[in-house]
């Protein structure tokens, strides 16, 4: 026996491996802690800390305390934090890599909590979306509320220009009308034309020669009248044009002050675009924080999706692969039942989970479900959140979540702070409901947030901050629509709210009230200028109109005289009869 067995070696082997096993047993907690921190940090993209890990061997269970997942986007915050996590699982399944947790309990879950020190972010972390930097948006916005004087300078008062234009037009047209008027025939000339027409029309030509002579006289008269008729027509056209232009100028003149005042008011009204940003600055970060609570379930599901993708990696011939011979089709990862306790608004809410896995095909397609239903408390009247999802080879990742919360009493909280301006929500009652669907790992959905009994405060020395404070103190109700889209691990949020319109109305009202005195003075000044100009120009217009009437009279007189044509003149009756008898005899008829 001694020739074959080396006893010292055997003892050394037992000591080495026994010692290793003993150390692993004794230090299972710290070893597991290091392994979990390393693995979770890789998955999270930023530092994950676990204060303590305890292993219980009989029954096999793991208990973790103070788990913190650094938010890679904001390393000073935790993406997720849990006070404790305890899981009971099957030991031998765990040894062969099949995690089957019968019961998981997590307490004190909170999102967006501040870390004691900023967590480290992995160098290879790639942000899936660019976070919106509201502080930078605020800086870019460069809010500047002009004084009333500045607005008046900027408003380009046009009334003096309109007065000048009207006066110029009056001067121009007066010259043209006067010039045309100087060419008009006199009344005497027209009387003479009438006398001559009367002589010609009342004459009784006895012979064709006399008739011919009369016709020639009429033609000569018409030639004489033609020049005057052209002059009258030219005058009437000029006078009519002058009347139309001058009447329009006077009309514009009367309307000019009001248009100027409207322009001033429009400048006092705030730019809608910039106010859209302002509501985003005020509520953007908070809404994102609230939305993360609403979508917190996906923070648990996200890593499973990543794990599911890993399964699809191509094996390497240099590393080999593990072949799955699981004929019973049991899932590699399954949490039958879990209870997570979420810290929200200084209280705790329980969320029940069932069948958490990424291999729903292996549990007969039964979806993973989660449900939060809290009865009325001092913090809310109703709190409901429910969701279900499945991950299958055929349909991919699909699911939906709906929520409905009523009467959440929001305590005093900071909305925004930068430089010397700070906005605070003093209190509000939050109601919200919405639905989010998931298809192939992408979120799409929307929710409505209603804030009632809103009390807000803006503090700051800037003039706009004081005005904003006045405006916000008048707002009692805010409606917001939050759109959710993007990858499940990095959802993006968009906010549409009626706060923009309310702020616009409030700002405009505040500035208009401040500007009322100035506007009244401006109105008086402009009205005085216009009245003076109108008094000067109105008589001139009347002159044009009177001259036009006279010209039109002359034109109608001349037109009447032109109605008699040379061919209208005929022989006298006796001569006509004699000529007719002579003609019959020559022809031999009766």
């Amino acid at each position, binding site marked *: 026996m001694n020739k*074959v067995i080396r006893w010292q070696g055997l003892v050394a082997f037992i000591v080495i491996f026994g010692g290793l096993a003993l150390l692993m047993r004794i230090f299972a907690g710290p070893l597991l802690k290091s392994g979990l921190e390393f693995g979770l940090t890789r998955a999270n993209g930023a530092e994950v800390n676990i204060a303590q890990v305890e292993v219980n061997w009989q029954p096999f269970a793991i208990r973790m305390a103070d788990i913190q997942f650094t938010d890679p986007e904001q390393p000073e915050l935790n993406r997720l934090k849990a006070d404790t996590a305890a899981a009971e699982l099957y030991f031998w399944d765990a*040894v062969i890599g099949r995690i089957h947790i019968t019961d998981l309990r997590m307490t004190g879950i909170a999102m967006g909590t501040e870390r004691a020190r900023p967590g480290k972010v992995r160098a290879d972390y790639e942000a899936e979306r660019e976070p919106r930097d509201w502080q930078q948006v605020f800086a870019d916005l460069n809010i500047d509320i002009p004084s009333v004087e500045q607005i008046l300078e900027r408003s380009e008062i046009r009334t003096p220009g309109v007065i000048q234009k009207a006066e110029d037009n009056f001067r121009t047209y007066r010259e043209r009308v006067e010039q045309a008027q100087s060419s008009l025939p006199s009344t005497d000339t027209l009387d003479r034309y009438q006398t001559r027409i009367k002589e010609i029309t009342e004459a009784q030509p006895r012979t064709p020669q006399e008739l011919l002579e009369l016709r020639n006289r009429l033609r000569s008269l018409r030639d004489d009248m033609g020049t005057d008729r052209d002059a009258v027509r030219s005058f009437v056209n000029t006078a009519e044009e002058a009347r139309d232009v001058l009447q329009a100028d006077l009309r514009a003149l009367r309307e000019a002050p009001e248009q100027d005042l409207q322009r001033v008011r429009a400048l006092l009204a705030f730019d809608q675009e910039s106010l859209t940003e302002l509501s985003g600055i005020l509520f953007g970060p908070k809404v994102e924080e609230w939305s993360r609570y609403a979508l917190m379930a996906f923070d648990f599901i996200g890593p499973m999706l990543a794990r599911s993708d890993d399964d699809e990696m191509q094996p390497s011939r240099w590393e*080999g692969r593990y072949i799955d011979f699981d004929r019973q089709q049991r899932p590699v990862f399954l949490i039958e039942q879990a209870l997570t306790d979420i810290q929200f608004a200084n209280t705790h809410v329980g969320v029940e989970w069932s069948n958490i896995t990424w291999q729903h095909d292996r549990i007969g397609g039964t979806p993973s479900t989660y449900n939060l239903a809290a009865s009325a408390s001092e913090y809310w009247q109703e709190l409901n959140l429910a969701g279900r999802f499945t991950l299958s080879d055929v349909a991919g990742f699909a699911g939906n979540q709906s929520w409905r919360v009523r009467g959440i009493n929001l305590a005093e909280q900071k909305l925004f702070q930068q430089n010397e301006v700070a906005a605070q929500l003093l209190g509000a009652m939050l109601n919200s409901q919405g639905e989010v669907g998931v298809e192939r790992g992408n979120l799409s959905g929307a929710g409505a947030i209603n804030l009632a009994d809103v009390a807000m405060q803006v503090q700051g020395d800037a003039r706009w901050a004081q005005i904003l404070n006045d405006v916000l103190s008048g707002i009692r109700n805010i409606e917001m629509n939050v759109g959710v889209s993007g990858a499940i691990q990095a959802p993006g949020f968009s906010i549409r709210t009626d706060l923009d319109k309310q702020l616009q109305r409030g700002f405009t009202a505040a500035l208009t009230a401040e500007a009322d005195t100035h506007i009244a003075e401006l109105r008086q000044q402009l009205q005085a200028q216009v009245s003076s100009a109108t008094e000067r120009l109105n008589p001139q217009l009347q002159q044009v109109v009177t001259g036009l009437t006279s010209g039109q009279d002359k034109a109608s007189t001349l037109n009447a005289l032109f109605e008699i044509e040379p061919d209208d003149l005929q022989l006298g009756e006796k001569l006509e009869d004699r000529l007719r008898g002579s003609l019959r005899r020559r022809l031999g008829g009766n």
Partner: protein
Amino acid sequence: MITLLAKLFKALNAETSPWALAWAFLLGMVLGLTPLFSLHNVLILFLAFSLRINFSGFILAFLVFSGLAYLLDPVFDYIGESILQAQALQGLWASLYENPLARLLQYNHTITMGSVVFCLVVAVPWLFISHRLIVAYRGRVKAWFDRLRFVQVIKGTKFFMVYQRISGLRGGSL
């Protein structure tokens, strides 16, 4: 490393049983060709520690075959894949899948399965080949070897001095 080689040469030339050396080569081969962190290698280490085999030979064989394993891994992967996908064996593999010990042995890993089967197939031939080579070395090769010019050169090197020191201590000779 030089000391290790010197010890191996001492073992080759001394009274150490050829079988002790052959078994050391065999166990070193298994440890070197199969994935190191596998449960079956704990058994290999147990045998290497507790049986009177030449430990220097075992370690040197492990180092040599570890290098060779990098080249042979695709071959092991192919062998393992073929065996694990064989229709006739599917029932066996499926039943072993529910056995924690089998899973700890990583039987369903293609390179582990391929390399272990390869080792099992070549183990017996390799054992006898090793034995024959050692015996031949001691009988004929050593005398011929000593006459070689470069061996004369080696005898003047640091390696030889170390070897001599070890041989002197343990009473061996070249």
